[in-house]
C-alpha cells in the first residue's frame, strides 16, 4: 500500500465535517478528558443509555434502573479517555448553587435525551433554555439531541416526531439569532444499534485525528477491495472512524454484531489456563493481535475480516464481492501497514500497551 498518505502530516480535508471541533479540552484545572454530559427530563433514558453503551447492560434490564439522584461521573479509559456524566433529570442545570463553570468548562458534548414516547414540549423548552445559556458563555459546545425510545413508534409517527422536534428547536434558536449553533439530532433506542451509531458520531467529532484516520481507511479499502471498513473501540462498540464511502446502519450493525462474536468467543476460550504442556508451543506461534475471518457459503468468498489493532481498537472490514479468499495475504499485509500508520496517529495507545506488558 505505497500510496498511503504520511500519517504524521494530518490530511487536510477540503470540506471539514460540520461541527467537527476536534477540540480536546485541556485547560488549567483540566484532566484533559472530554466530558460527555447526559441531560434531559426524568425517565427520558439517560442512565439506561449510559449503562447499555458503556456497561453492556442488556436493554431489558434497564427497566430496573432507579432514578438518578446525584450526578454520576464515570471515567472511560479507552483509545482516548473521556468521562460520562449522568445527570438527575429533575435538576436545574443552571441553578447558581451549581458550579456551572466547573460543569460546562471542559465538556466535549452535551447530550440531551428526549423521550419520544412521552409529551416532549417541556423537554424542548428546557433544552432551548440550556442551548441559549450555553451559546452565551460556551458557544463551542456540541449539543447532541437524542430523540430517544423510538423503538415503540410507528415509522410515520417516528418521522413526524423527529421533524417536529428539530423544527421547534431551530425556530427558537433562529429567533435568538443562533441559527448556526452546533446542534445535531439523532433518533435512538437502546433496543437496537441506533444508540451506538449516534454515540459514534458524537465521539468522532471529538477526535482531532479523524480526517487522518478516514484517509488511511479510504486507502486501505481501495487497495484491498474492501467495501466498508470501520475502526471500532472494542469495549464500547463505538466506531471512531470509517472510510468516507456512504455509511448505512446495516453495515455498522453487522460489524458490531461481529465484534460481539469475537469478543464472546475470546472471553470463553481466552481464560487463564493453568500451565499446560501445550503452552510453550502457544507462545512460539500464537499471534497476539486477535484476527478473525468469515467465509460465506453462498458467496464462496471472504465476507468479514477483523483484526485487533491495539489494546483498544479493532479494524473490521466488509469485503467486496470481488475479493477472493486467497487474497487474505494481501489484506494481512496492508492491514499491517495500516496498523503501523495508526501507531503514529495514536501513540498513546501503544505506550499503554507497553506499560501494561511491562507490569505483567
Amino acid at each position, binding site marked *: 500500500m505505497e500510496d498511503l498518505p504520511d500519517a504524521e502530516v494530518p490530511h487536510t480535508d477540503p470540506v471539514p465535517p460540520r461541527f467537527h471541533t476536534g477540540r480536546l479540552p485541556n485547560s488549567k484545572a483540566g484532566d484533559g478528558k472530554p466530558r460527555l454530559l447526559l441531560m434531559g427530563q426524568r425517565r427520558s433514558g439517560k442512565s439506561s443509555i449510559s449503562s447499555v453503551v458503556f456497561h453492556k447492560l442488556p436493554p431489558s434490564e434497564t427497566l430496573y434502573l432507579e432514578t438518578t439522584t446525584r450526578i454520576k461521573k464515570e471515567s472511560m479509559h479507552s483509545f482516548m479517555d473521556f468521562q460520562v456524566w449522568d445527570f438527575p433529570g429533575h435538576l436545574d442545570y443552571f441553578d447558581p448553587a451549581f458550579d456551572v463553570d466547573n460543569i460546562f468548562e471542559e465538556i466535549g458534548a452535551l447530550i440531551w435525551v428526549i423521550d419520544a414516547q412521552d409529551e416532549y414540549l417541556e423537554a424542548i423548552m428546557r433544552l432551548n433554555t440550556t442551548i441559549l445559556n450555553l451559546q452565551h458563555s460556551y458557544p463551542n459546545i456540541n449539543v447532541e439531541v437524542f430523540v430517544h425510545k423510538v423503538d415503540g413508534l410507528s415509522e410515520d409517527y417516528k418521522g413526524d416526531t423527529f421533524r417536529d422536534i428539530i423544527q421547534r428547536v431551530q425556530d427558537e434558536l433562529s429567533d435568538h439569532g443562533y441559527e448556526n449553533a452546533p446542534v445535531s439530532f439523532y433518533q435512538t433506542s437502546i*433496543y437496537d444499534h441506533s444508540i451506538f451509531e449516534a454515540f459514534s458520531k458524537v465521539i468522532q467529532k471529538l477526535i482531532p485525528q479523524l480526517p487522518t484516520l478516514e484517509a488511511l481507511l479510504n486507502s486501505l479499502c481501495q487497495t484491498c477491495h474492501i467495501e466498508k471498513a470501520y475502526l471500532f473501540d472494542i469495549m464500547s462498540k463505538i466506531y471512531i472512524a470509517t472510510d468516507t464511502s456512504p455509511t448505512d446502519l446495516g453495515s455498522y450493525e453487522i460489524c458490531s454484531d461481529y465484534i460481539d462474536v469475537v469478543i464472546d468467543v475470546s472471553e470463553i476460550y481466552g481464560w487463564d489456563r493453568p500451565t499446560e*504442556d*501445550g503452552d510453550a508451543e*502457544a507462545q512460539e506461534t500464537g*499471534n497476539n493481535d486477535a484476527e478473525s475471518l468469515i467465509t*460465506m*457459503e*453462498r458467496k464462496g468468498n471472504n465476507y468479514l475480516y477483523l483484526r485487533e489493532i491495539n489494546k483498544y481498537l479493532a479494524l473490521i472490514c466488509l469485503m467486496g464481492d470481488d475479493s477472493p479468499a486467497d487474497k487474505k495475504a494481501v489484506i494481512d499485509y496492508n492491514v499491517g501497514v495500516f496498523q503501523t500508520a495508526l501507531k503514529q496517529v495514536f501513540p498513546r495507545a501503544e505506550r499503554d500497551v507497553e506499560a501494561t506488558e511491562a507490569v505483567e
Partner: protein
Amino acid sequence: MNTTKRQKQRKVLLMGKSGAGKSSMRSIVFSNYVAKDVRRLGATIDVEHSNIKFMGNLMLNLWDCGGQDGFVENYLTHQRTHVFSSVAVLIFVFDIESREFAADVVSYGSIVRALAENSPGAKVFVLVHKMDLVQSRLRQQLFDERAEYIKQASENFKDTVEFFPTSIWDQSLYKAWTQIIYYLIPNARGIEGLLRELAEVVDARELILYERTTCLMVTHVTRGVETGNPFTDRFERISSILKTHKQSMAKHTGIPAGSSNFAEMQIKTGRFMFFITRLTENTNLAASIPASEQVFNAARVNIMLVRPRFAELDIASKPRPAVQQAFAHSAESGSGLGMGAMDGEDGRGKGKERERGFE
C-alpha cells in the same frame, strides 16, 4: 436391521397456558425469528404441526398446542388419545408472570395424567418461562420454589421430570432446548465417541457439534485443562452467538436466514485458536485448539477428511468402524473402539500427542 434410511419420528408436545410463550420459543429455535419479532405472533388456533428434520435420521414431529381453555378442554376429552398417544416428550411451559399459578398447575396435572395414560414412557420437561421479567437476584429462589411445587403435581413423572428457567431474551432458551434435543437424538453416544476420537487426533481442547438450522448443540468433547473452563454456560452461549450472527448476516446480505450460513469462521488469538465449519449436511463443528498455526492447519485438514464418517452417522444409526481409518495424517495407534463401545471418561488430560505427524 433395516435402519439405513428409516427416519426416527419423535412426537413432541408443546403445551402450557395461552400466552406462556410456546410459539415464541418455537419460532426462535426452529424458524430463525429474533426475540423482537415474536410480539407479532397471534394466539395459536388448535394445534400447529411442524416436522423438523434434525441431524439426519431424527425427525421432530412438534405439536404446538394452542393454550386457550377451549382447546385444552378439547385435547383432554375428544382428542385425548389422538393428542397424548405415542408421545416421546412433553414440554410444558409455565409463564412466571401468571397470576393464576395454582390454576396453571391444576391444568398441568390433568395433562400429565392424560400423558401417563397414553404414553407412560414419555419424558416431561417443564420450562419456567419469561424469567427476564423477574429481577435477577430473585430468579433462582423463585424458580426453585415453582419447580418444587410443580414437581409435586407431576404424578407418575415426579421422579423424572426436569426443570429449566428460560427466557427468549438470553441463552437460557438454548440451554433448555439443548437438553431436550440431546434426550431425543437416538445415537448421541455414538456421535460422541466419534467426536472424542477426532479430538484426540487433532489435539483439540474442545470440539462442539452444532445442528445447523437451530444452532443447538448436539454434543461436545472437552479435553485436558479445558475441562476447567470456568464458563460452564459456554455451549449455549455459543449457540446464541451463532444464531444472532446468522440473523445479522441474513439481514445484511438479503439472503434468508435459513441459508445465510457461513462456510467457515476463524478466530485466532495469542491464547487459543477457534474455528467453526460445516461438518455434515446438518451439522457445524466448532473447535477450540491451542494457539498454534500448525495445529490449526492440521486440524482443518483432518476435519475435512473425517467428514464422510460423520455424514454416515448423520443418516444411519448402525455401528461404524472406528474413526481412525479416516485420518491420513494420524500415526496414533487406533484403540479399535467400535462406535457402540465408546468410553466416555477416556481421553482426559492426555494432551501428549505433539509428536504426531501433522503437516
